[in-house]
């Protein structure tokens, strides 16, 4: 700290100088500070802008002639600036270059027909010189240059987001998130940063692709930020609800795939119609499924496909239990002919000593297996039990 204590005094002076003259002997001092880096960027940028302005003054020349003439000009200009020199007026510079190279003077008629590319280059040169004019503008410009890599990353995120939306990638919490999409996004970030650094552009037309992509990213950045903001501020419960909420029929989070009902005496009922507390049919079907979920029977080490209860086959209703079951064919993988499902218990001990006809509905022992349906809709279950008999 003691060594550098004297340095800050020199930096403000350098920063407030109207035209930064970077003498070689001052560079060891300035080069170690952030403003020194900015000064170097300034020279490189000024050189590029000046070269572009010169080029636009000579755009009446054939392209290959122009390329030959201006090849290395940017590097020469930058070195000139680093030596503490000034560049002067690009128009006069271009005229001097043209005369010295023995090239014909500009045809006055060709002047107005500036190609779009040249007009853009000229506009950029004007903007660059405008930004270089005052220390305040220069500091704004240098700041923008410093955060440029952040833009390279952001535009890759925007591009990946837009591409994944176009490909209808499934959204999680409003964002396309998957291993594949993360890998795709990372690849795009690498590409974007490399393009930002002027790498990975083996063909000239790729620069046009880069320009178009850049403009598209600028246009899409607001929708992207708005969408991301909306997704991030939405409660996360949406996510768990949509992903993990059990579909169909469940007890304590476990899936119920079949129901076995017994009467008061403990005999299995062959067909029981079940309804919930609102009178809706109680089925094991998921909201948008057309067939009920399979049962996995650990004892048999296989799963069973379910179909209608034999008595509900004609009515084609799913709230009649137990559902019949079929094993999957080992050959075709298709479920075979359905047969009555095997209950976990063939019979139960009687519920009461007196299971006579006077048994009221309240006491009827529809003892549902693996479900809370019995507890919640006693009336429906018992009514169904009587119907089933």
């Amino acid at each position: 700290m003691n060594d550098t204590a004297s340095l800050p005094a020199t930096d403000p002076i350098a920063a407030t100088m109207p035209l930064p003259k970077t003498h070689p002997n001052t560079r060891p001092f300035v080069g170690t500070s952030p403003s020194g880096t900015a000064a170097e960027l300034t020279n490189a940028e000024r050189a590029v802008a000046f070269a572009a302005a010169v080029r636009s003054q000579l755009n009446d020349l054939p392209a290959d002639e122009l390329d030959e003439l201006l090849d290395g000009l940017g590097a020469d200009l930058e070195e000139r600036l680093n030596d503490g020199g000034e560049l002067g007026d690009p128009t006069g510079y271009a005229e001097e270059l043209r005369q010295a190279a023995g090239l014909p003077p500009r045809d006055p008629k060709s002047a107005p027909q500036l190609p779009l590319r040249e007009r853009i280059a000229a506009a950029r040169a004007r903007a660059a010189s405008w930004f270089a004019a005052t220390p305040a503008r220069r500091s704004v410009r240098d700041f923008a240059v410093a955060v440029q890599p952040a833009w390279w990353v952001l535009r890759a995120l925007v591009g990946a987001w837009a591409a994944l939306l176009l490909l209808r990638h499934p959204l999680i919490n409003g964002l396309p998130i998957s291993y594949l999409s993360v890998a795709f996004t990372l690849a795009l970030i690498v590409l974007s940063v490399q393009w930002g650094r002027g790498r990975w552009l083996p063909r000239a037309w790729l620069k046009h692709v880069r320009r178009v992509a850049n403009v598209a990213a600028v246009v899409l950045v607001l929708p992207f930020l708005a969408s991301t903001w909306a997704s991030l501020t939405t409660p996360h419960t949406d996510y768990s609800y949509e992903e993990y909420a059990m579909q169909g029929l469940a007890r304590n989070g476990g899936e119920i795939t079949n129901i076995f009902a017994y009467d008061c005496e403990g005999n299995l009922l062959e067909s029981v119609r079940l309804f919930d507390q609102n009178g809706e049919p109680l089925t094991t079907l998921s909201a948008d499924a057309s067939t009920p979920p399979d049962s996995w029977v650990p004892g048999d080490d296989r799963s069973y496909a379910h179909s209608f209860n034999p008595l509900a086959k004609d009515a084609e209703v799913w709230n009649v239990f137990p559902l019949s079951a079929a094993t999957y064919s080992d050959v075709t993988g298709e479920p075979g002919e359905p047969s009555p499902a095997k209950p976990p218990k063939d019979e139960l001990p009687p519920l009461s000593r007196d299971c006579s006809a006077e048994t009221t509905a309240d006491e009827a022992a529809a003892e549902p297996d693996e479900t809370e349906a019995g507890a919640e809709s006693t009336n429906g279950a018992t009514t169904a039990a009587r119907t089933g008999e």
Partner: protein
Amino acid sequence: MDGTQLLKGVLDAAVLAVVDREDGYGYDVVRRLRDAGLDEVGDASVYGTLRRLYAAGALSTYVVPSEGGPHRKYYSITPMGNDLLAEQRNSWQRFSETLTALIEPQQPAQAAQPEGASA
């Protein structure tokens, strides 16, 4: 009289001579001309001259990669350039002798004339 006006006619010779001594890239040639005392030489004039001499076959180019910067296009003199330089050296010599004699201060001559006239 402005030095740049004088320089225009002999810039080809100056550039050829500099490149003849040692190959160089654009700004390098400018710097060496300045170091030699041609302070008023314009960068663009030198680059244009290099390009024209190259197009005329007096110079050839090759690219040298530089560390941490863009590639540099170096110029070197060709046999045709050497011939051109020799020719321009001769004509400059004749021209400078002629001009030196022409613009020599006239005091001695004026002093001699009256003597001759009186004699």
